[in-house]
């Protein structure tokens, strides 16, 4: 479990999503006090936005540790189009 006070931007997608789900679960139990509930809710909204932003902005990065990636014909023609799409 990631620290709950971590900046959502610093959390990995999975950690942010897990925390968000935990928050929703906790809120649904209805066992929290009003102030605690509201604090969790706010945190949940921030995490939700962070997750959605990560997903929306993501452009897959490929790093070659060993060897050179040989572009195949199919992928070479596909790449520029997808990059342009990703930038919009």
């Amino acid at each position, binding site marked *: 479990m990631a620290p709950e006070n971590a900046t959502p931007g610093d959390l*990995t*997608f*999975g*950690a942010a*999503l897990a925390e*968000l*789900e935990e*928050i*929703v679960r906790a*809120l*649904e139990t*209805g066992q929290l006090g*009003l102030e605690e*509930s*509201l604090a969790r*809710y706010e945190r*949940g*909204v921030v995490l*939700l936005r962070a*997750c*959605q932003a*990560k*997903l929306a902005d*993501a*452009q*897959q*990065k*490929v*790093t*070659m*540790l*060993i*060897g*050179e*990636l*040989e572009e*195949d014909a*199919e*992928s070479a023609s*596909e790449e520029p189009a*997808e990059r342009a799409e*990703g930038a919009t």
Partner: protein
Amino acid sequence: MATAERALSVSDAMSLAKSVLESVRITVVGEVSGCTVKPGYKAVYFSLKDDCALMPCLMWRDTYDACEAELRDGQLVEVTGSFTAYAPKGRLQFQVRSIRVAGEGMLRLQVAALARRLEVGGLMSAARKREIPAFPRRIGLVTSPRGKAIHDVIRTLRRRYPVAEVVVAGVQVEGEGAVAEIVCGLETLAGEPGVDVVILGRGGGSYEDLMPFNAEEVARAIVASPMPVVTGIGHEPDTCIADMVADLRASTPTAAAEAVSPDRTDVDRRLNALRRLLGRALAHLVSDGAGRFAALARRPVFREASYLLAARLQTVDVLADGLARALPVQLRRQRETVERARDGLTRVGSRLNGPFELQLSRDRERAVAAGRAVAESAERRMGLAAARLDDLSPLAILGRGYAVCYEGDGAVVRSAEAVARGDRVSVRLAEGRLGCLVEDIEKEA
């Protein structure tokens, strides 16, 4: 047997051995070694070996050409034929009639043997299998940098989960050196920070092509990997050792990429669901709070207390207000009434008093006179009565000079005989008393 009696020539003996050996046709599996295929030769020579034994083989050139096999050292082959003896050199040879190069059956046998060994070693135990992370930060990929597999994986990950970075170790995946490179690729990714899962993949190929993925070294490297390894090897339903020891086996590189990544549309849906749940949780929280508040407010103790209190406070206020205003007025009004009554009474009183006063003084004088008459008459009658009372009193008799004598016990002494000399008697006079001692007694005759 007759032949046992007579010594054979060496030639005869070898000939006998040869005929006996050749009568038995068998199939043998072994690894090719020392293979000699020379254009001018009538036969192809090689050995088959296993861990403990070596078997020299020959195969006639035309038979070899007909089977379209290409023998290489290290290959596993299945040969059918029979032993024979080469008399001039006294050598035992296996004469190969047919050969199945890289026979899948053999490879499978070999692989199965290794699989059993690794299984016994616990490498395939379900308990060893690690969970594939749902949202990997970086995804490792060990595969050939050429070919379809790497692009299949990258395309799939880009479509499904572009959030994760793909870290590729491009290695040779078939032929000599493949095993070492695959192991090196796995080890390199093991040292990369943030890699949460590794895909080991290659496209389809013959069973022999996939042999590096059946190597024990690769199996051990997969087991040694600090992060889970997902295999996506070939399109065939074949299962290789790498698949068996991997944490998860996918049938193709694309399937492996899918296995290590969440589906973006699923993630979107999940986030939307969470957004709704979060909103609902807040709404519920607010409505629940409001509901609880309302329910509390409806409780009689709260509702009536406040209501009654308010009403009563208001009543008190109104009364206090009225009182404040009414009191002085009332007081003044009552004082005026009292004063008026007193004035009236004074006036009426003086008017009433005149005649009554006269009457009263006359009555008083008459009453005094009558009273005096009554008093005088009563006084006279009382004097008479008192005189009569005096006459009757023993004291009045004593007043005339008589005395009464009492014995000591208080009894009146009426006779001299009642006392003796020396007795003490008491004598009551009209005034006072005498204590006397009887000295002399005279009895009347």
